[in-house]
């Protein structure tokens, strides 16, 4: 695309609680196809960061390779970004998080990047419950190499290539639930009103927060026989409920007084309010979450919304007992034992 976006913004754009306007969270112009679901997710990320709010420079954007992994250039232009290699973003994010536990790590990946070449790294970063938000822009196909099926393409789903996918699909949410993710949600790029609060809740949770967002590929996988098309997802999606996230120190006002509202208080004092259909399950029950995914799948329904939230599991730092101080800020004096200690050590080798 060759057009440029005007730099002018209305001078009266409202600032958020930190004094930033929405513009401060924008990035460069997208080069993805017009109508790509990924651009909607980028916009939802911008909106969530603006609303939460977070300071842009305290966010680190991470990605692998693919259409989805290009998007960190299109949001949060004042944040550091790292577009790594294919399927390896979790390792980079893990190292970065080890170096400085005080930043917000926002990983963006695709279904090829996560469920195929990066499946190993994905499962292990989940196991370690690394404190990060991991957004999968899930379109069931490889866009940049022109439309091959990915490992999340449903069996029988047919992309523009015309051949039904003969293989079983990987459900990333179910996998993440099995191996210890602290927060699991599924969204749809076409449902911004649901996606923004999902992202805000994910960013507020400590531990590994997976947000698997079905994001139709308008060029290669938006056919009538695809289960990742706009039409199919709209027809088959079913939400666990509507979500509000109330940040800490904000007065909690809710209209929902009935028994169908579940509150989950996060470590930073934020509260997630989930307003559910009557009789639905608890979102702090892992097994129930897996059951719900399976039963919806059996009925060809796509369950969206927060599937699971448990933010007291302890992240990687807690598991391996690292100092609360960011490791990258510890000075030489506190790291190097000095020559006297070395000479004492030498005695042990004599």
């Amino acid at each position, binding site marked *: 695309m060759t057009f440029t976006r005007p730099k002018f913004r209305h001078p009266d754009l409202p600032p958020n609680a930190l004094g930033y306007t929405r513009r401060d969270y924008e990035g460069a112009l997208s080069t993805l196809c017009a109508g790509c679901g990924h651009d909607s997710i980028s916009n939802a990320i911008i909106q969530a960061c603006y609303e939460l709010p977070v300071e842009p420079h305290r966010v680190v954007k991470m990605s692998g390779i693919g259409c989805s992994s290009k998007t960190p250039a299109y949001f949060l232009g004042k944040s*550091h970004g790292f577009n790594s290699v294919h399927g390896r973003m979790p390792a980079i994010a893990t*190292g970065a*998080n*080890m170096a400085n536990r005080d930043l917000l790590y926002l990983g963006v990946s695709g279904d090829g990047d996560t469920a195929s070449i990066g499946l190993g*790294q994905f499962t*292990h970063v989940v196991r370690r419950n690394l404190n990060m938000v991991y957004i999968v822009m899930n379109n069931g196909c490889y866009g940049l190499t022109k439309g091959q099926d990915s490992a999340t393409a449903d069996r029988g789903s047919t992309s523009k290539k015309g051949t039904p996918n003969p293989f079983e699909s990987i459900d990333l949410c179910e996998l993440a639930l099995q191996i210890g993710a602290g927060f699991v949600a599924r969204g749809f790029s076409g449902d911004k009103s649901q996606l923004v609060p999902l992202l805000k809740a994910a960013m507020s949770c400590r531990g590994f927060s997976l947000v698997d967002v079905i994001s139709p590929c308008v060029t290669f996988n938006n056919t009538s026989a695809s289960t990742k098309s706009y039409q199919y997802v709209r027809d088959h999606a079913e939400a666990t409920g509507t979500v509000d996230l109330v940040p800490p120190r904000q007065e909690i006002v809710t209209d929902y007084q009935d028994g169908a509202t579940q509150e989950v208080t996060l470590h930073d004092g934020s509260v997630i309010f989930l307003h559910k259909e009557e009789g639905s399950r608890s979102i702090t029950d892992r097994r129930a979450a897996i059951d719900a995914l399976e039963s919806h799948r059996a009925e060809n329904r796509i369950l969206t919304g927060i599937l699971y939230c448990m933010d007291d599991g302890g992240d990687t730092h807690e598991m*391996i*007992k690292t100092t609360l*101080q960011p490791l990258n800020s510890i000075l030489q004096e506190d790291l*190097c034992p000095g020559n006297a200690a070395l000479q004492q050590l030498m005695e042990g080798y004599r």
Partner: protein
Amino acid sequence: MEKIASINDCVIRFANVNGSGSASANNLFAKAVFRLGVPVSPKNIFPSNIQGLPTWYEVRVSEKGYMGRRGGADMVVAINSQTLRQDYDELVPGGYFLYDSTRTLPEEYNRTDITVIGIPLTDLCNTKIENPRLRQLLKNIVYVGALASLLDMGLEVFTDSLKRQFKKKPQLAEPNIQALEIGFAYAREHHQDACGLSIQSRTCNDGKIMMDGNNALALGALYAGATVAGWYPITPSTSVIEAFDSFTKRFRLEPESGLRKAAIIQAEDELAAVGMVIGAAWNGARAFTATSGPGLSLMNEFLGLAYFAEIPVLLVDVQRVGPSTGMPTRTQQSDILTAAYASHGDTRHVLLFPAGPRECFEMMADGFDLAERLQSPVIIMSDLDLGMNDWISEPFSWDDARRYDRGKVLSAADLEGLKEWGRYLDVDGDGIGYRTYPGTHPSKGAYFTRGSSHNEYAAYTEVAPVYERGMNRLLIKWETARRLVPPPEEKISDPACRIGAIFFGTSSPAAFEALDILKAEGITVNSLRLRSFPFQPQVMEFINRHDRVFIIEQNRDGQVRKLLLAENEMPAVKLVPVLHFDGHPITAGFISQQIRQALQARNSSI
């Protein structure tokens, strides 16, 4: 028969069964020689196995201080029935064969050119050691006691070592000391003058230490301020991280909370291990990983990213025998080319070649400075021989005035004062830009790191001249690296001499010894020990001043020779390969013979 007779100059080979507790007994023996002040170099020749397969421990004693492997054995302590015949047959004429005489040797063991020393180890243990559970383990200590008598070492140095080893559990020292005494008394009574080998107290080791290279590297990482290690277990590098883990538990725990000022993560594979290092280093922590050949192969993709995106990486490669799985518990120097040019596209990496524990310690500290100064991977090329065997070394020291060189990193105040900044702008002319850590400044210094082609401002580009400019700048940085890496160590015995030898790492002790052997025969050879890649001008100057230069290395293909030819213009025939690659450490005998032969062949052809 003429018995081998020597003072402080012998090789003793212990033949054991893996997992039978022999390692600590054999180690006790080597340490005793060290503490008697006599130079000693033990080499563990072990199988890729936890229990049951044959393992050997070769101890070379050399008052002259030759620490390379000698080859051959003057005495075999043959405890492994699986290899009894082989150990018997391989013993040099005039040598000594110590075995467990509880069962007599079969008739066909009828050599007349060796001295057989029978010690009924099993019998002695069964009759004299009360606790049946200790009998098997202490059998090993009994033969050490016998050696103390046979080699005139006395018991004191052994009992002192045991007391020191079991300082916190003196009740464990007692049965060990008893076992020592049993063996000692038996040998003195039955084999009083059987052995012509003798080890006598000297002062050669005053002030020195005995340590393996992997521990030295870990200690270097502790002193260099490493805080993050991502790793995947692989022989023979595993103990680098294990030692770092224990050093940080000793020196980096916060007293109140017990929390550690280090994060060590066992990754799912070597790809993730080096990825974690890259992520952490990018974010301002000193981070490293240790691996061996197969891991290095897996890390190639990420090393290319670190080279192109310009991120410091400290990688330790403890080399073992390749290709593929090769021989995981044998040594080689065969990852040189793959490390130097790791990853696709035009890449090149800084290599350091330590030749002993002290250099491991120092190169680890220097390596972090170099990696951060150059914003690029630095690979320390150790090997199994250096990493897993104990070496006598000068003690380490740390200059308390030394400051870590964290390289070109901008603070928030720096960013405030800057009018223009581009992550990859070469403002100093050394090919190195200024980087920022995430979270430094609210509105300045953010950039997008990528492995795709980028311009000076870190933005994606497919513009040909911009890409070329970046690649050419990396060459300027390579020249900066050439100025910063540790220089080679040259020994010019005779300025008029036209024969030279180049070697590096663990080939060095054997090579120096070989040059002494040749010198005694009237053949002078000048030498240059490489310590790093890129090669400095001194290396070519050395090659230019000689007619023939022997390149001594432990691989089949002459990898450093190839690297020298790839990086410099010269006639290839000038560099003569001396290659040893059977998995055992190279010996002085092998090197001197190869050089002698080559020189004779040339003389006769003239």
